[in-house]
């Protein structure tokens, strides 16, 4: 187990928190799509660690960005600079990093691993377009956050508010596709977001699910492959993948949603 110190903390609005932690190994080894399991404290209630995607790495530090959705993330949001947390990581298999061209599609907090990926693509000079959708104005802070990167962004919001495409991120993506003729070697698609987004994406026209990489969430017991909690059904095959070991990045075509 690793111990990391919190070196930066920032609330984005009221329900998102960005934390930066100092832990050399994770900062040096992590790749976009990988995650860490973070304890919520020294109490056994709540009991389990929580999986959180890695947002970025810088020297000996790495970032996390999470949404407060329940008890565990609530407790994590109360951590302060200087506090120490126990964690495991980096865990899981990340995204492939060498496409010719890429399209990144993120919904809500699902933008986290894609943000990391975008930074790598900037460094590697891989051309890409980033589609980002939020459900409501409350998540506008995430747009501001994402806008820090010098990247081509297409923003959508399911609530009407000035300036952005109104609809889901896939509506925006579809709309954009119709306006741009995709290059011959169609760009590789990377996606992360809620279950429903993946389901819709899989059914869209001119989409080859096996060429799309998605990063999944699932309930995890251990995060490192021993408990078999994180099952996701294989498509067309009997049995399950395990998100923490076989994923969290999968080809959209190999999983049943």
């Amino acid at each position: 187990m690793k111990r990391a110190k919190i070196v930066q903390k920032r609330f984005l609005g009221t329900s998102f928190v960005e934390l930066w932690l100092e832990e050399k190994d994770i900062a040096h080894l992590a790749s976009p799509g990988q995650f860490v399991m973070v304890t919520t404290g020294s109490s056994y209630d709540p009991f389990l660690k929580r999986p959180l995607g890695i947002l970025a790495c810088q020297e000996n530090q790495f970032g996390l960005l999470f949404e407060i959705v329940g008890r565990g993330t609530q407790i994590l949001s109360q951590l302060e600079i200087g506090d120490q947390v126990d964690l495991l990581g980096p865990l899981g298999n990340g995204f492939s990093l060498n496409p010719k061209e890429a399209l990144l599609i993120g919904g809500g907090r699902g933008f986290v691993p894609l943000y990391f990926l975008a930074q790598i693509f900037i460094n590697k000079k891989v051309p890409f377009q980033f589609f980002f959708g939020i459900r409501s104005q409350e998540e506008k802070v995430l747009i501001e956050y994402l806008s820090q990167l010098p990247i081509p962004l297409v923003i959508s919001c399911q609530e009407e508010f000035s300036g952005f495409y109104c609809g889901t991120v896939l509506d925006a993506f579809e709309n954009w596709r119709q306006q741009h003729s995709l290059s011959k070697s169609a760009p590789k698609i990377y996606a992360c977001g809620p279950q429903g987004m993946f389901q819709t994406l899989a059914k869209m026209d001119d989409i080859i699910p096996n060429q799309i990489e998605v990063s999944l969430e699932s309930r995890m017991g251990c995060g490192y492959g021993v408990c078999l909690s994180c099952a996701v059904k294989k498509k067309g095959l009997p049995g399950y993948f395990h998100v923490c070991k076989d994923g969290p990045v999968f080809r959209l075509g190999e999983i049943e949603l």
Partner: protein
Amino acid sequence: MNLQVHLGNLTLSNPIILASGTAGYGREIAPYLDLDRVGAFTLKGLSSTPWVGNPPPRIHETYAGIMNSIGLENKGFDRFFREDLPFLENFQTKIIANIWGKTIEEYSDIAKKMNGLERIDAIEVNVSCPNIEQGGESFSSNGQVLCQLIQNLRQKIQKPLIVKLGPNTDDLNNVLQFMEKEGVDILSVTNTFPALAIDVENQSYIFSRKTAGLSGPAIKPLALKLVYDVIQRTRLPIIGMGGIMKTEDALEYFLIGAQAVALGSVNLIDPSAAVQIIEGIKTYLVQKNIFDINDLIGKVR
């Protein structure tokens, strides 16, 4: 200092075991824990043929506990043999195979296969499994069937035979007597506790099978009571488990008479917990001026 314990004909270099289902087949936990440090390592439950297990969700957090409904998913003997056994050859630690089946025949089958492997030091039979010949009730919910199963397996297994009981074993007194008579070597107590959870948001059961097994710190006082009850009724050596998180928890089990303990859920949140607990036990023995862990076992009467 002596930490070596003898459970019948199974000798462990120390009495800390990793419980089945919480440490994989070894390779998964090995990056976090030197397997040669623990007294024994129990494999995730294996059946003769692969088993896909239950649909998600498979885990649910409760107050200081977890409910799991993994449904005994496992890769089956053959893949274990190919993929994991070679890795395990690198270690000296004792390895316990945990086995199960849906019929007595399936149990026999995996028992024979495991019995044939040199690297396996003992075989632990999980009897809290659905018995499809008896309508899906667990093997342990019918004392007679359970005795039949045990008798059958004892004939197939020459290695030390461990029977792993759950909290609701039918006709416990008779079953214990029978096991002593048949020559069962060791008992593991306890498997998870049957429990229920409801999703109030969606107004449904959390798990597709409704009930699931509760483990973790929440059950410790109950598991300790169960181990105590079994110890009162048998002279078979016992591996105690249920909710052990820290050195003190393990010591409670030793003090009431468990010859070894197994760590389950704690491995999920801290894969190197076993080493800390072993070190903690050493510190305690020094403080208490006890040279041999065996002098601690059963000290509270």
